């Protein structure tokens, strides 16, 4: 295991700055940190992608969304689309922290993205985020014509905690039929301590203590973290789940749960393509300024999305 040089340098800077991810900072500081990180190290994304800020009336009130339309998008053509849920440990992250990543994914895939500003913990604990995520997918399907989306090629996507939301939405019987799920370094079984949690639990971008704090903020007393709506890996039956692209990072505490989910999907007969990015850390895909190899990686993921939406197949 050798860390990617860009990732190693960024981790070294974070460590020297005492930014290893100390817990007990409070949600406001957590959010500010992710915003700062996006500004100084984040993917900026191509400006050629058109964006439109939208608002829907969600289960908790007004819900902001951002539609990304790649430049090659022809007029009034229904396009395949992914409803996107950002990461940030259920506590942080917003439309802006992941704007560059969404732009790059849209540009490289030719697919429209609809990013969701779902409610965050601890102000809005479980199930607020999941309710908003499910609502957004149903809303996208119901408004497909107005959004120029092809409802037959609608999928879900997300990174980190948002990857867990995407998987949980896909498992929900109230979700519309989904053509694809894209899971980037997803958190799929947060309460379980698989070996990668031990190997990369400190000094690798997401500290063990920070995860525990986030999970506590999200679940509160409302739900057992082992509930499959929080831990989609614990769902009893995965048959019939949408085709899946799962991307994990080698030096990521959440690597093993991502790979375990891909294995379980495959055993259940679901078409799945799982990639482990060598030397990469959690959240690398969104850090192209700090981790230069992340940009081409996202482009490769975009090409996989394009192929999956074109052919319906995620494997060669």
């Amino acid at each position: 295991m050798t860390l990617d040089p860009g990732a190693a340098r960024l981790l070294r800077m974070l460590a020297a700055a005492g930014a290893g991810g100390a817990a007990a900072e409070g949600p406001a500081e957590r959010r500010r940190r992710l915003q700062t990180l996006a500004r100084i190290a984040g993917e900026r994304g191509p400006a050629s992608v058109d964006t439109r800020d939208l608002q829907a009336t969600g289960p908790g009130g007004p819900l902001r969304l951002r539609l990304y339309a790649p430049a090659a998008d022809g007029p009034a053509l229904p396009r395949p689309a992914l409803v996107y849920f950002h990461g940030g440990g259920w506590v942080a992250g917003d439309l802006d922290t992941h704007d560059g990543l969404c732009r790059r994914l849209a540009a490289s895939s030719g697919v429209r993205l609809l990013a969701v500003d779902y409610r965050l913990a601890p102000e809005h604990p479980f199930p607020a985020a999941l309710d908003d995520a499910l609502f957004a997918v149903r809303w996208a399907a119901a408004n497909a014509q107005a959004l120029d989306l092809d409802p037959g090629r609608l999928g879900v996507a997300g990174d980190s905690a948002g990857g867990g939301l995407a998987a949980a939405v896909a498992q929900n019987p109230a979700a519309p039929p989904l053509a694809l799920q894209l899971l980037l370094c997803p958190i799929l079984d947060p309460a379980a301590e698989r070996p990668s949690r031990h190997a990369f639990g400190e000094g690798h971008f997401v500290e063990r203590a920070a995860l525990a704090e986030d999970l506590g903020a999200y679940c509160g007393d409302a739900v057992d973290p082992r509930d499959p709506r929080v831990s989609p890996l614990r769902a009893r039956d995965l048959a019939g789940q949408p085709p899946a692209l799962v991307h994990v990072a080698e030096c990521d505490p959440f690597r093993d749960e991502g790979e375990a989910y891909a294995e379980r999907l495959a055993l259940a007969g679901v078409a799945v393509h799982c990639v482990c990015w060598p030397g990469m850390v959690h959240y690398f895909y969104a850090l192209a300024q700090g981790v230069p190899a992340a940009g081409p990686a996202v482009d490769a993921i975009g090409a996989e999305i394009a192929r999956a939406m074109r052919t319906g197949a995620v494997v060669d």
Partner: protein
Amino acid sequence: MADGGSLGPEARIFKLVRHTLRVSPAVDALGADQPLQDAGLKSLDMVTLMLAVEAEFDLEIPQREMTPENFHSVAAIGRLVSSLSAAGV
């Protein structure tokens, strides 16, 4: 080295710190040897500052020099910049 006008390294670093903190009065009262944390710099502000120092002085800080000590104060950063510039990094 990037053109820094007539300002010395410490003055340029003070400018960067002010920019990082978005003009906080605490910076103006900060001595060159005082810990930057005293001026309210938080952890990711320090990373921002490291990247800003690299850009300002057109150098790449080697990983072995990325230590809390080297970014403890404006004076410490000034010494780091001088030694890296002298070494032609």
